[in-house]
């Protein structure tokens, strides 16, 4: 071998890449459903929903873990619970809040709502990643999960748009979503306030990810299995 010195390094790098993929791709399909530009690519709705549910479940798990990690690391003893929990920026969206409401809403509307919520989180997730990186002693557990959630959120959004295209084709929805304005809070000088802002954001993320996960499972059973999972 010409370059024996770098072969072990190359192997290690390869190992790291593979492992990172393994970690991040837990239960998640890594290949695109349809390559871009493929017009006639028709993945079945069942497969689309299966993948979407897997993604949403994965994102919810990551959010829970991230929140717990943050709570354990930063929120203990700070009395965040004493402070007012601000409502999440997505609360303005008229999402069903119990089973009856969810069953009454039309599945197309529910799909649109899901897409809106997902869109609403693009910006906050992006800033969450950048701000967590800027934190002193940036916790890798939180940062890595934040990065992963941001990535998977985008993919879930793409999948949902495909589903909407199959379920409700032809309707071009205005890209409505809730605007997030919590960035200044994340950048406050006061550490307490800043941490509280993070805490609130992560709490809202956990809640919304559960909401999306539940909606998608409901829709999957309703659309794909005709309410007979």
């Amino acid at each position, binding site marked *: *071998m010409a370059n*024996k*010195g770098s*072969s*072990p390094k190359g*192997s*290690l790098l*390869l*190992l790291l890449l*593979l*492992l990172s993929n*393994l*970690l991040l791709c*837990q239960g998640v399909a890594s290949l695109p459903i349809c390559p871009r530009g493929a017009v006639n690519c028709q993945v079945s709705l069942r497969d689309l929903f299966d993948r979407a549910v897997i993604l949403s479940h994965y994102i919810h*798990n990551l959010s*829970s*873990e991230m929140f*717990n990690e943050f709570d354990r690391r930063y929120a203990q003893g700070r*009395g*965040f*619970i*004493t*402070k*007012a*929990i601000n*409502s999440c920026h997505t*609360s*303005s969206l008229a*999402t069903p*809040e*119990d*089973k*009856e409401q*969810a*069953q009454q809403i039309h599945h197309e509307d529910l799909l649109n709502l899901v897409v809106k919520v997902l869109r609403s989180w693009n910006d906050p997730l992006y800033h969450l990643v950048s701000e967590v990186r800027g934190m002193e002693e940036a916790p890798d557990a939180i940062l890595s999960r934040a990065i992963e959630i941001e990535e998977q959120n985008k993919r879930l959004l793409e999948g949902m748009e495909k589903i909407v295209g199959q379920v409700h084709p032809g309707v071009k929805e205005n890209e409505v979503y809730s605007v997030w304005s919590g960035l200044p809070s994340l950048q406050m000088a006061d550490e307490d306030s800043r941490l509280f802002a993070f805490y609130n954001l992560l*709490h809202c993320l*956990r*809640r919304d990810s*559960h*909401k999306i996960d*539940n909606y998608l*499972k*409901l*829709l*999957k*059973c*309703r659309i794909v*299995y005709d*309410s*007979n*999972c």
Partner: protein
Amino acid sequence: MHLWQLFLTLALASSSDAFPGTEDTPAPPGGASQSLQRVHPSPETNSSGKPKFTKCRSPELETFSCHWTDGVHHDLRSPETVQMFYRKRTKLEWTEEWTECPDYVSAGENSCYFNSSYTSIWILYCVKLLNNGSTVDEKCFSVEEIVQPDPPIGLNWTLLNISLTGIHADIQVKWESPPSADVQKGWIVLEYELQYKEVNETQWKMLIIRKCGCLTNVRDPLIDLPIIWMKIESRDFHFPWLLIIIFVIFGLTVMVFVFIFSEQQRIKMLILPPVPVPKIKGIDPALLKAGKLEEVNTILAIHDSYKPEFNNDDSWVEFIELDIDDPDEKTEGSDTDRLLTIDLQKSLNLLGAKDDDSGRTSCCEPDILDTEFNASDMCDGTSEVAQTQRLKGEVDLLCLDQKNQISLLSLDTASATQQPSATLVDESKPSPLLGGSESAPQASHSQLSNLSSLANIDFYAQVSEITPAGSVVLSPGQKLKAGMSQCDMHPEVVSPGQANFIMDNAYFCEADAKKCIAMAPHVQVESHGEPSFNQEDSYITTESLTTTAVRSGPAEGAPSSEMPVPDYTSIHIVQSPQGLVLNATALPLPDKEFFTSCGYVSTDQLNKIMP
């Protein structure tokens, strides 16, 4: 069998963690709960008798209930009234007032039940406990955080099949989702965990986590043990153990590969020691390639194990040559004597390891060999029986002769041959002189005659040709015999007959030989034996593997007259290319002890006879 003793008791338990580790959400509205506690740090909170929330739980994400402990009644006179109030945060703001619990009954004592109309998911609730108007406990949560599904129902098992040994079995375990959970519409998705334990154990072992409602092919040797309890849990969360295991295995594999391909030779030697290449000391592979075999040979000769091969025949020849080259030793007795010495024991001992297979195995079958031994054993004691046995057509003679020959050959001294292997030739007339294989001088012949050993069996014969059938045709020896027989009578005749005799091979019967010997050994020996035989170079004896002529000196004198004596000898065994072993043929001789000549003809001799 254990399986038939299985007792399944459904002990279903269920647990669910919608949000891991957070059953009580620490999210008070406006910091109510904690601040309340801070603002009103009542001493009553320190006592253990205060009512406290124990658990708030939602089994199906549609309703929920809160439970609390009933405090110790400090004052029996005024029973304490415990009230629970709740408040929930709507989309943008909290409800202003605390509302009392809608249902204190449905969930049991000291509980508050919120049915589906009062339940909203993804919304913060705060509940507080009031004791005589004073808040004693408060907590805040969201309904999706306190989901704890009911246990599955219908847990049952079915025996599918049992292995032949009865140790392993396949079991199908079935259960159904709890009725409260609406899994059919997908509102809640449950995961199940199957646990098992032995009868007398206390710890439950987890078997598998499943999402569906059944589990087939539970093939685990531990299942064979009697199981009483089978617990199924419903959960909503799992930990990626499989991922960790895969990660570890992958890392180890990569590390191994890194070491293998690493340039660290030491590590490589440790993990993969090189296989030693076969090598001979002093041998240079280049030498072999160059083809210099002589040098290789010299080097290899250093090693003891390496010995150049020797022709077996050569060793045989050596032995023979030794005997022939030393006539003095042979003067002590004719070759025949030596060959036929009865002292087989001695000779065999001397033989030792020499030429164990020369001749003997060529003609002898095991039984024959045994017989030979028997015969030899009886040599000392005259045993006609033994001799007759041999005469009976067995090829014993051949073997015996060969043995004798071997023994004699190996012996330099013919002392052993001094003994006239008398038993051998009780009735046979030895023809020692005839069997004389060397160009014996007179003295030798005289000595031979002295020996006059009965062991002198006729076994010299000249093979004139070999029939296709395999039998060997010997040149007529009757003449000789005839001559021999007459030699007694007409010793004078012997002389002139020598010439005739010369031409043919000498196949002498013992009787004739004896007569001749007895009569005029000297005469026979002296005169004419030598040259005539030399000419023919045809006498073949067992010992005369060399080309030296076999002289049967005394025999020469004999064959004045020829008597028709059959002289065909069939080949007993053709042991090409070593030689031919001649068979004994019955000859109508008065002295019937006709020992067939044990002709062991070497290929060289044969070639000379028959080009």
